Structures are given as structure tokens and as C-alpha cells.
């Protein structure tokens, strides 16, 4: 099991770094299907709790059955599956990007309070803790890579101006941590947030899957390059409104 997780995380790390580097070089893949396939893979990999929620719970000491069963997504914290499927492609990408941005901030805040792996050598469970910390770091890189691909997909769909610029890989550049008096509640909220995040990414994966499977929808959102080659322009989606996660991001 551990080997499986390690392989998966390594794969996602490689993919994340690959696309991050591509973005750093200012390049985007212009193959719609390849990009969509990549997004799908990234969404599928990030929906796995072992990539984020499980190490988080172990680090916070929440990995007990009684606590685990209360670690459920708060309704409304993330856009629902239906809401996501109702969005147009551009709106969907914007929503996804915004949500991932918040997740990144949350993870950055979390990592600021965590020790470096080498500081854990003399502590109990040092090996497990070190592994979990590395998994959390990789999760951030994966999200960075996913956001880069979202940016590229937005550009490919012809709305680069609307798409948010991809976040550059680097240490926490987000909001300063807000002191919360109750650390326990903060832990639980974080846990629920990440549970919602994995559910959200599962829905995202399904949406990407829909994109790949539905020819009509694909035609409707054909890449800009294809459109410029004489095809009719995409009709603006009536469901193009942008949703944002309503969950409170606690640090």
C-alpha cells in the first residue's frame, strides 16, 4: 500500500513538475485532448485521500476512527457536483482555479506550522511524519501543476484574459496565519476542508471526463485554434457564472 502511494505521489510529482516547468518556459500544450487527458489524470490523482487528507490527519493526530467519522465535508464548502456540471467550460475552469488557489493558501499556512523533516529525526514516529510532510509538499506541487494546466486549457479555449495566471511554484506566498484560539476546531475544520477538497476534485474529474466523452460539448467548446480555422464561434454559456468555495479556510 505504501509503495503504491509512493509510486502515485512520485508520478504526480513528476507530472506536476513537468507542467510547472513548461509553464515556467511559457509553453502550453496546444493539443486539446492531450491537455484534457492530463487534467483528467491530475484530477483523478488528487481526489485520492492518501495524497492529502490521510497525511494531514496523521500529522494532526486525527487518525482515530471516532474522529475520522466526523471528518466530513461541510455542506457548501465546495461547489457541488451538480453545480460544477452546470458550469460552462470557462466558468468551470475559473471556479476550479479559484478553489485550488484557496487550497494552496491553506496548505501553505499549514506547512508554515510544520517542522522540517530533518527536525523530526529524534521524535517518535519520525519516519511516518517525515513521509507525511513530504506528501504534503508534493500535494502543493501537484496543485500548482494542475493550475498551470487549467491556465493552458483556458488559453486554449480562447479566454486567456479571464483565466487567472498560474501560480508560480514557491514557498507559501499566501495570507498570514490568523490566530484561532481553538486549535482543535481548527484541526477539525482543516480535516473537513480537505475531505471536501477530495470530493470536489472527484467531481472535477467527472466533469473532465464528461468533456472527453461528450462530442457535442466538445464541439461546443472547441479550441480557439480550431475555431479560428473557420468554425463557428462558441455560443457563450448561459451557465458561465463563477462559483467560489464557501468553506471557511481556517489556518
Amino acid at each position, binding site marked *: 500500500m505504501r509503495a503504491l502511494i509512493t509510486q502515485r505521489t512520485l508520478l504526480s510529482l513528476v507530472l506536476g513538475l513537468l507542467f510547472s516547468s513548461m509553464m515556467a518556459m511559457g509553453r502550453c500544450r496546444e493539443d486539446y485532448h492531450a491537455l484534457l487527458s492530463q487534467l483528467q489524470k491530475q484530477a483523478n490523482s488528487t481526489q485520492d485521500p492518501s495524497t492529502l487528507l490521510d497525511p494531514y490527519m496523521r*500529522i*494532526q*493526530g*486525527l487518525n*482515530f*476512527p*471516532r*474522529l475520522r467519522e*466526523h471528518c466530513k465535508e461541510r455542506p457548501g464548502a465546495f461547489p457541488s457536483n451538480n453545480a460544477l456540471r452546470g458550469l460552462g467550460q470557462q466558468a468551470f475552469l475559473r471556479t476550479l482555479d479559484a478553489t485550488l488557489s484557496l487550497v494552496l493558501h491553506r496548505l501553505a499556512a499549514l506547512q508554515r*506550522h*510544520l*517542522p522540517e523533516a530533518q*527536525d*523530526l529525526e*529524534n*521524535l*517518535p*514516529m519520525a519516519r511516518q*511524519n517525515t513521509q507525511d510532510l513530504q506528501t504534503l509538499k508534493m500535494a502543493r506541487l501537484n496543485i500548482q501543476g494542475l493550475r498551470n494546466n487549467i491556465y493552458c486549457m483556458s488559453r486554449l479555449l480562447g479566454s486567456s484574459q479571464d483565466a487567472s495566471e498560474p501560480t508560480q511554484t514557491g514557498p507559501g506566498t499566501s495570507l498570514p496565519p490568523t490566530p484561532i*484560539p*481553538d*486549535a*482543535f*476546531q481548527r*484541526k*477539525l475544520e482543516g480535516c473537513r476542508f480537505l475531505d471536501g477538497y477530495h470530493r470536489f476534485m472527484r467531481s472535477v474529474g467527472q466533469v473532465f471526463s464528461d468533456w472527453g466523452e461528450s462530442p457535442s460539448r466538445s464541439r461546443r467548446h472547441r479550441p480557439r485554434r480550431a475555431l479560428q480555422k473557420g468554425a463557428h464561434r462558441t455560443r457563450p454559456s448561459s451557465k458561465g457564472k463563477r462559483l467560489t468555495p464557501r468553506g471557511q479556510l481556517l489556518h
Partner: protein
Amino acid sequence: MAFPAVFQTTCFFMLLSLRACQSEVLTEHLPLTPEALKVFVNSTQQSLHLQWTVHNLPYKGELKMVFQIQISRTETSNIIWKGNYSTTVKWNEILHWSWESELPLECATHFVRIKSVVDDAKVPQPNIWSSWSSWQEAKVQDSFEQDTLFIFPKDKLVEEGSDVTICYISGNIQNNISCYLDGEQIHGEQLDPHVSTFKLKNVPFVRERGTNIYCVDHRRNTINGGTVLFVSKVLEEPKNFSCETQDLKTLSCTWDPGVDTTLAWSKQRSQSYYTLFESFSGKKKLCKEKNWCNWPISQDSQAMYNFTLTAENYLRKRSVNLLFNLTDRVHPMSPLSVKFENISATNAVMTWKVRPTGDYLTLLCEIELYGERKMTQHNVSVKVNGKYLLSELEPDTEYAARVRCAANHFWKWSEWSGQNFTTLQAAPLEALDVWRSVKSGPGTQNVTFFWKLPPKFHANGKILHYTVIVENLDKPSRLEALTIPAPANGTELTLDQSSYEIRVTASNSVGTSPASVMVISADPGDKEVKAERIKGSKDGFFISWKPQSGDFMGYVVDWCDHPQDTLCDFQWKNIGPNTTSTVISSDAFRPGVRYNFRIYGLSTERIAYLLEKKTGYTQELAPLDNPQVDTINLTSHSFTLSWKNYSTESQPAFIEGYYVYLKSKARRCHPGAEKEVLSEITDTTVCCQYKINNPGQKTFTVENLQPESFYEFFVTPYTSVGEGPNSTFTRVRTPDEYSYMLIRIILPVILCIFLLLVACNLKSQWVKEKCYPDIPDPYKSSVLSLIKSKENPHRTIMNISDCIPDAIEVVNKPEGTKTQSLGTRKSLTETESTKPVYLYLLPTEKNYAGPGPCICFENFTYNQAASDSGSCGHPVPVPLGALPSQLGLLTSPENLLQAPGKNCMNSQGEIPTGETTLNYVSQLAAPVSGDKDSLPTNPLMPPPCSEYKMQMAVPFCLVSPPLTENSGLSSMTLLGPGDH
């Protein structure tokens, strides 16, 4: 007199009145009651902070007072703590005091009251306690909503091992609420229907993100409240706090912070930090790192420093002090530019520089010099540049030199700085260690001359070649010099039987070593020395020899490290003249290998004399193999075993003898043998053991054996550590006695017969003459000559053709007249009876009318095998003309009827009598003249049925096989004249 008395009385009353006034004032203001008592709650520190004043202090100065404080929980009557607080109260001062609660203050309302008493020497006794202040309530929360539950304290930070009290307040009457510490349920004590407490003893550190404590409302299945207990490891006092400077500009202070408190990431606000405070300058510095800090040295020539290092976190503060003089803490940097100058074969000058320190302190520098064999140390004082002469070095040697420095007032050495250098070469210092091995041949001596490569410290450089000079001491001759390039370690010389002096020198690029001299004597005088056995050990061989009376300058022991190899790795060891023993050890010595040592005495003329020989093993081992045994001299009662090819010299131990194991069915051992049980892998074998005590005896005869019996044997050597391995028995069978006898008898007989046959063959003519002489030729008869000369000159020998053949009459008799038949003759009779025409009457002129039957006679002089192809097998007509010549042979009736002897032919008795009677009518008895003339008219014609065959003439005495039935059927062959 009255005035003084009045004055005294007045004064007395004045004093009395003053004192009374004073007492009245104090009595009026005491006791002093605390006033304006206020209670503040600090939830984080879980403490009550009290603040009050004491009004109406009688003096504007200070007054020592004692305050008694009571604290109640939940209700005033439940006093949980009381204590005194002593302090000096100043006029109008607001007094403060804190009390830390075990129970989180949120979980219960607390009440505080206070009273006081003056405890000052200025106030006369007795002191009276004031009355209590009113109860002051300390309450954190007023009320709780329904269905809410709060756990306190929130995010409590404690040290590992401390005790903590946790509580929760529920908005409802407690029902179905369970609390857990991480995954385990904890059980507490109910303070009131809404409040429960949990006392956690000796809390451990679990994780840096804290231990989770939470309560679950089972009725609603929700986690209503929780808290995190952050457990910190105890902050330790910094260890090994030390400060030093390398450049007198900056002090570098280091320490060991000890165990990490883990607070650095769990509670940012309580991160432990370290501060340095220097008391002389009053300066303070917050250190960024947890184990080191730099302190700038001021330029005001401050010599003494008194540092206080303080480690502090939210829970604890620890500090250590360090006082020192700056110059005592100078740790110089490593020296620079280490170089070597004027390097010769034995000297070199080492130079280096030290990094400048503030006041150019004098430094003490230490030099370490590593040669090939040893390390030497040298000390030198240095200001700026260091210089040192390294002397007594060894030529052609690589040295490693390094230097480090310290302040004169030693604190610490600097790091090492080093460099390598090599001294120059010099001529080899000492003569070679030489030895020789001499093998004498006819008229020559083969001398193998060895020398040991000089040690590095004697070679003084790379040896390029060796020079061997051979000088004949017996007759003046030209010196013979051999130059042998390195790295040879010996040479072979073939010398005649003269005495020679051999000198060897080694040369390098600079010079030549002193010569090593050895004399090979024409008459070494080596006597036959028998090797003495010695016992070695893993440490080698202890070898001793008898002190020699001669004038010896020393002794030499030589041996081979690998005696079993062709190149035996010849070794020798020189021993002084006053020593008669030594220990020979070598890494090459192995157990089970025999080593031979020769001890020589070396005379002052440098001639070596063999004194003794030693041989031994470092460890004897049991023989690994058994001899190959041959069986010889096998008789019916003994056999001999031989293993002459077995070498006792190459065995892993001294062979002390042999065991011969003999196994037989009898299982009985002869005298001289012992019954022995041999254990083998599969079974045990009982056999007889013969012991041979002489290792040189390599044959053994086993006697007293049974003929025609199987015996099994094997032979194994034995040594002091055991015998050889068990091996398979070899089987041998003793022959029977008769065959032995037969061999002894038959062989001579056969030989005799053979000789006899040879003799007979050689004397065959003689035998022939004796046994079957030729038929005499009447023409050559001497009688004839006598007749001619004396009686009748006309007489002549009758020609056979002139004779008229006689008639033979065959008379048949009836079969019933047979009298008896004997043996094989009977068959003949029967044959004749069944073939009545077997004999045919010879025809006369009258009745001969052409081809007719012929007659056959058996000539018993010859033995011819039966042949069906002969003329007797069937009737063949005989021409009439052939008869005279054939019958001419029958002139001697003895030849026909009497020649066969008893042993060589059928007896006459065997001839069937009565069956057929052959009546012979001699032609001489009744000659017929008419016939006489007619015979020559019939030319002699070969009979068609008669044929002459080459026949082997056999003497009568050698015709041993009796005639068989077949032979009885053999045809009788008529031999013509001159045909035999």
C-alpha cells in the same frame, strides 16, 4: 532641691502622656483591613490575579504585613485554598498577588477574600488580624447555551511529565457524553451537573501538533467540544557554553541546547530563544540560532568578559554564566603557506606563516613529523613567520609534516596545516645480510648465494644493482665480478673444489654499500648430522643447539618457508655468538607441514659449518591418506602386503608406524593382532589389527590363513595425533592347496613330455628304424650277393609279376554260429553281415569278365581314419591287372595277420570267427603254371577303387586311443612298393 524634683516629675508625666498618646494612635488605626480587593482572571495562565490596597497606614513609611487569602470554588463555603502572603506595604501602594488554579477557571466560579495583620517590629505586640474582606467572585463565563459543550483549558501548553486537569462545561445536564484523549476514553469526576473534570497525570509527548482531547455527545452523535494539549519537552540548561576568538575581533560563543522542546513549530509564541548578556558592558544580544552566537569585540580594550546565556521559552527559563579573559580564549586559525627549503638527505627547513591576531600575540606552534617508522614532535614559538630545521632525517624518505599553533596562554590548538616532502638519497648505509646454500657435486660446488633486500632505512635510495665478486682463495686468479640488477635477491654460482670468498655490495644512484663477505670452503667439513625432531607451535619453533667450542662469530639458522614448493622460499636468521637458541617464526608456517632447519656456525673466517639439523611441525595432523598397498606372495596360507611407494617424509605428521586391519569370516585374530572395532559411516566393522611400530617397515606378511578363504585388509599409518582415515578394505582370496600342488607337479611333467617329444622328433629316424623299419629290398640284400657268388650264379630274385596270385576263398557261415561279440567288434560283424559283398573274391583269368568287385584288407600296421570316400565304402570294380601288384605286398603273411600288436590293434580274438572265414591259399604252396605266364600279359593297371593315400606312420607304442567303431570301418589301404 525642690526644682530638680519638680523637673523630674514633670518630665515623667510628659513621657507618660506621650506614650499614652502613641498607644492611643496605634490602637485607633489597627487592625489594617485590606480594601478595594479586585480579582482578575487570566484564562491563558489559568490564574487569579488579586489587587488590593491598605488604607490608613499609620506611617508614611513602610510596614511589614501578612495577608491571609482564602479561595473558594463554586460557593464561598467550599474553600479550596488558603495561604499567607507577607510583604512590606508602602503607603498608598496597590498590592498584587496571583494564584494559579489547577482547574481551568472557566469551569467553575471562584471566590476570594483577604485579611491582614501587621507583622512589623515597630508595632508592639500583640498583633491582631483584621476582619475578612468581602468575597470577591471570579467568573469567566456567565451561562452556556443549550446543547453546547466546552472543554477547557484551550490549547494548553504544558511540560512533559506534568499533571493537567481538564474540564468541560455542558449546557445540558450531562447525559451520554464520553471524552477521549486521542483514541482512548478518559474518565473524570463530576463537579456539578454541568461540569466534569479529568486529571491527567504525567502527560507524555505524543506529537508536535499536540494531543487531542474531545468529547462526543452520543445522543446526537456529534463532537461537541475539543481541545489540544500541547506537550513540550522540558527546556534544558545550555551545556558546554564556551566563547573564543580567532581574530580578536569577534567572539564566537557556542553551546549545546540539549533536547529540542518541540515548541518551535507547535506554538510559535512560546518558541524558546537564547540571549547573551555581557555584564561588564551591559550589552545584550538576542541570538538567532539555538546553538551559537557571535559577539563583536569592542575596541575599548575590554579584557574581561562575563557572559550570561539565557534560554527561555513560554514555560521555563534557564541560564548559564561564563567569565573569561579575552586573551585566554584565543583560538588561532590554521597556519598558512607551509613550505620546505634546503632539503638534503638528512635535513629540511620547514617554514610557515600564522594569520595575524590583534596584538601579534606570540604563538606556540607544534610540528609533527611523520616518517615511515615513527612520528616526532617539535615545538617552536612564533610571532608571524615560523621556521624550523628538521634534522636527523632519513635519506630518500617521504615525510609528512604538519603544524598547528596556539596562544601562549593555551586555549585551543588551531587546525593543522601540513605538507609532504622527500629527502634526498644517500649511499646505502649497511652491508647486505647474505647467506648461501651449497650443493656439492663431482668436482664442483653449486653455490646459491642469497641476500636480503636492505631495509628502506639502510638502502638510502632505490637499489639499482648488486655486485658479486668471487675470489679463489686457493690459487691466485683474476677476480670475477657479476653485476646483478635489482630487485634480484640471489644468484647461483658454480665453483670448483677450491675455497672462494664471495663479496656482495648493493648500489644506488649515490653510492655503494659496504661489502658482505662469505667464504665457501673447499672442505666444508660438514659431518653427517641426523635431524632431531622438535615440536613447534603456532608461534613458531624454539630451536636450541649445543654451545660450540670453536671460535664462532655467530650462528645462522636456515629453513624453507614453503618446503613443499619447488621454490621453497629460502630463509635464514642470524644469531649472535653468545646465543644458542632462538625462536623461528613465520607467517608462512602452516600446520601439517614439516619444516627442516639447519644450524650453522659462522667462523671468524666467515666459513659456515653445519652443526645441527632440526625437523618438526608447528602442529602435527592426522594423515590424510593411506598408502597404496600391493598384495604379493599370495599362497593358500599367507600373503604379503607392500606399500613401498608410501613416502613418510611428505606426511602431515611424523609417521610412527602402521596399522594393518584384517577382516575375515573367522573373526578370530591370530597372536600378534588385536581385535578392533572400526566405526564407519554406515556400520561398525570388527577386524584384527596388526601394529607395525617401525615407520620404515613397509611390508607385512599375514600368515596362518585358511586356504580358499576371503580376507579383507587395509593399511593406515598412525602418528602422534592419530591414524589415517578409514578406507575401504581390499579383498583377497587365498588359493586351495591342491591347485598349488598341481602346479608343482604338472608343470614338470608337461616339461618332461615336451622334452621327450623334442627328443623323439630329433631321433625320429631312430625310432622309425626301431619301431617300423622299412621293408627290406631284396635286391639289396646281402644274402643275394652271397647266393650269387657261392652257390648259384643264375639264381635271381623272384619277380612279383612272375607269381600267380593265390585264391582266397570266402566261406559263409550262418549267423547263428556266432559265439560272441565283443565291444566294437560286434558292430563290425554286423556290418559285414549286412554287407556280404564287402569282400570280393579275386577273379581268376577264367572267370574275370571285366570290372568287378575288389577286395580290401586291413593293414594293421597303419592307422587311418575312416573315410567314406575310400574305396571300401562301396563296391568298386577292380581291374584284373592290378591284382598282382597289390597282392605282392602280401608275401609276408605276418605283415597281415601278425603285425598288429595287442596294444595297437583289434585283437585277433576280436575278429569274428565263424561269420566269415578267410582262407588263405599261398601261391607258393600250389603254384599254377598256366597262370604264371598270363600275368605279365596283363599290364598293371591302377584299380579304379583303390587309391593310395599319404599316411602317417605311427609307432605301435604311441597308438594309444583304442579303435573305435568308426575306426573299425576304416578301409585297409594297400601300399604299393616304394610308396611308403
